[in-house]
């Protein structure tokens, strides 16, 4: 069933291309601004803020996963797949894999371009920057994206289809970026010695929340939840 996963990833990119494009573009724009502001002075702002802001764009940019799930449920695609013998758990996992794939694309592009631009701007990349990327940016990006995806999938399957700002699709990005913005504010204002505690702790909490949600999802996401409400 690699086909199902592969097709879902491709469709997630197509369906969520606007979010993906905006997520990548804004992340690169911000890194450029950070470099222009402080690049020639050692890139201090770049080295501390760049790893903190990336999860924000990885989360908003990977909304395609949730959009695809919601669309498939509403349009009755899941009904067909269940009738063909694909289990609800697999469908749920498929949505999460697609979200992770898009988050990987965003992270790969923004980290690659951002760090290359910094090197080109003769910023000496400190070890702390790589630690922040490894212990905060990457886990927080994936956990954040999976967090909104899981919440959104459970929520959208519990409710009748709605559109607009008060729908799961409208609210999910706000729910997802809230902890990241909080970390951004706290980490920037806290003493530098607490930087890793704050970022690492926040990433660990979000990862724990995702694990908890995934454990609950088996109970909350019975096969009836995958049936179109139309």
């Amino acid at each position: 069933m690699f086909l199902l996963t592969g097709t879902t990833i491709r469709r997630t990119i197509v369906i969520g291309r606007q979010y993906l494009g905006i997520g990548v573009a804004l992340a690169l724009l911000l890194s450029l601004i950070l470099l222009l502001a402080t690049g020639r002075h050692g890139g201090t702002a770049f080295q501390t803020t760049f790893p903190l802001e990336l999860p924000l764009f990885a989360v908003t940019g990977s909304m395609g996963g949730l959009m695809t799930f919601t669309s498939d449920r509403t349009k009755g695609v899941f009904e067909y797949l269940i009738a063909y013998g694909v289990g609800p758990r697999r469908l749920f996992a498929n949505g999460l894999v697609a979200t992770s794939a898009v988050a990987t694309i965003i992270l790969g592009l923004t980290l690659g371009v951002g760090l290359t631009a910094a090197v080109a701007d003769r910023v000496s990349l400190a070890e702390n920057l790589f630690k922040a990327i490894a212990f905060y940016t990457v886990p927080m990006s994936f956990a954040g994206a999976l967090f909104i995806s899981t919440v959104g999938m459970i929520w959208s399957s519990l409710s009748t289809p709605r559109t607009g700002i008060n729908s799961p699709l409208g609210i999910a990005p706000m729910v997802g970026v809230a902890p990241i913005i909080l970390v951004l504010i706290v980490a920037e204002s806290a003493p530098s010695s607490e930087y890793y505690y704050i970022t690492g702790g926040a990433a660990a909490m979000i990862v724990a929340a995702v694990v908890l949600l995934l454990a609950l999802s088996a109970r909350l996401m019975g096969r009836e939840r995958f049936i179109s409400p139309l």
Partner: protein
Amino acid sequence: MSSGYHGRRVLQDISFVIEEPAIYVVLGPNGAGKTTLFRTLAGILEPYTGSVEIDGIGIGHRDARARLQYLSHIDGIPDGLRVDEALNFYATVEGVGRQDVDRVVRMLGIEELQPRFFSELSQGQKKRVSIARVFLQERSIYLLDEPTSNLDPKLAREIRDLVLGLSKDDLVLYSSHNLFEAKEIGKYVLALKGGRIGYFGRLSDLRPAKYIIGIRAEGADGALSSLSKKGDYYLQELSGPEEVPNLVAELTAKGVRIREVKEMENPLEDLFA
């Protein structure tokens, strides 16, 4: 069996066996449970009580599922795919090849739709693509939930002909709101009422409360002038279809040139009363 959603029973005390290859028309007013019945038979919903079996094998089993094809009243085509991609997607899920996709594309006449995104198609075109999926692989049981809704009369006729072809060797459960269509193609009727079976049997065994025929004829002013008219048809109530030949002979003897005789009442209407 009983079945429904989130603990709320939509179907209750449903029990039937079907064996003979034919079209079994599933009828019922909105909310009677037709779609729930199809979803339960297809293994999408798990019955709260009882079971669905194909030749003694539970519908949850792979062998039972492999004998069944399901068409939802919703198109079920994934967003973000072109028509040929969507059909190839389902072909792979079903384990059939490209040649089967080409075959159904020709069968449904959707060659020109293949490069287009599904979301760009009209309602009728979408339905046609959705139905094409049903014919990707031969199955022995077809569950078709409103296959002709949103279709123009010509295409609806083509689809009915395809379904009639299937019913020669296979079991077809076919839901429709169109009673004339149901009467035309159905051999058996399964009527749902309030989530229970209101009637299950041969369509030919159903008799309308009143048997009324319409006669379209020329030179009928004298012989039929006492009858009421509906459009071009003179209405005559008879005790049953066995009286029709005598009536026709009698009118012909009186010089009436009969163009058409048709039943004006559909016995299926009584199932909705």
